[in-house]
């Protein structure tokens, strides 16, 4: 019983915390595909900038993962 509320907390943290970045990355990739379709010559530029923005969007879900890991392993 003592550990249960922390486990639920960890599950909620990562579960809700992955919704936003998931949507964000999906939109990002969609717009990148669109831009690629309109301008195939700029593929290298588009890809570089897309990966850069991807890393930032991913970082938000990593924050949620860190909180979940903190709840399970440390507290």
């Amino acid at each position, binding site marked *: 019983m*003592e550990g249960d509320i922390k486990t639920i907390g960890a599950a909620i943290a990562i579960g809700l915390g992955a919704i936003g970045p998931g949507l964000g990355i999906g939109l990002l990739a969609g717009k990148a595909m669109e831009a690629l379709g309109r301008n195939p010559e700029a593929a290298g530029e588009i890809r570089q900038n897309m990966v850069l923005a991807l*890393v930032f969007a991913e*970082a938000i879900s*990593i*924050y949620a993962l*860190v909180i979940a*890991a903190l709840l399970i*392993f*440390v507290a």
Partner: protein
Amino acid sequence: MSRPVIIVVLIGIIVSILGGAIGNAFGLGFLGSPIAHIQLPAEPVFPEPFLETGSGLIGDITITNTMVASWITIVILAVVTFTVNRKIREVPGRIQGLAEVTFEFFLGLAKNIAGNNARRFFPLAMTIFLFIIVNNWIGILPGFGTIGWVESPEKVVHHAEVKAEKDHGHVNLETVHLQVFEGTGPIVLLPPGSINNHMTVSEGYVLEDDGHLRELDTENRHGFNEGQTPGLLIPYLRSANSDLNTPLALALVAMVTIHWWAFSTLGVFGHLGKFINFKQGPIMFVVGILEIIGELARIVSFTFRLFGNIFAGEMLLIVMAFLLPVIGIIPFLGMEVFVGFMQATVFAVLTLLFGSMAVASHDEH
């Protein structure tokens, strides 16, 4: 891929599923080993602390496994740099070619982002980039996290007791898990097929009233047998950025240097005037205060982005190696290589970006 290769790969996948944790549920785990003990803080390399300070504030100084890994990175970078610098030729050899490619890629990126200040910002950003990328990439080599020393059950229970006392509880010996190694003596190991070699402390030990742990005799214990050693594997080496201290140190160095650059370019009042400005009305004053909070948030975000990616990657590799023993981690190792490179790039690029934003004088907004 040709037909025989596909068949071999499929057989490999099926064998590894049956040999791992999933197959273990059907009694078949012949390839796996018990899941490694994952914990957030870095573990010490020696059982006793390196230096015992008496003070309760600083605590004992220990040499941790992530510290040793970052020393290895420093040695690698120093050796490569000295080798390249000893004889620089017009037509570069292979190591010099690699160094030149890295430098050109990064200098191009720096000129793109920082413009005129690229040469000034380049040393710090390049050092951060090289340090992070070598740290991340050697952290996925075999041997990191799998070779270590075995902590005795008494120490494990002691750590669990200390942790339980912080929550004002008592340690429950049925929740403290140990791994059971084959063999006794100086070298013990977890061979393939040892996936059930784990036990809880209560299955082999009893906690006496005076606090020390007594081993149950052979009839009463069912955790381990003769010829086996229970304990917990503490690795000698662990990826340096999977400990919160290294990313925090890098983030602090980067932010302090960015503010140093801003002070040296804009002067004390020019730079402080960005944060506490009375000249442009009350709204800009509040914006300035929010920018102070933004600076602190940048340190936190630098740290947690790097730490979270590398720590989560490490946990992912451990869990995948547990589920699909030999081949399950191959695609994830590829992902870790890419993630390590991207995180190093992002850290260095953000340093350059914030540096060039900080030295831009406010009138150009």
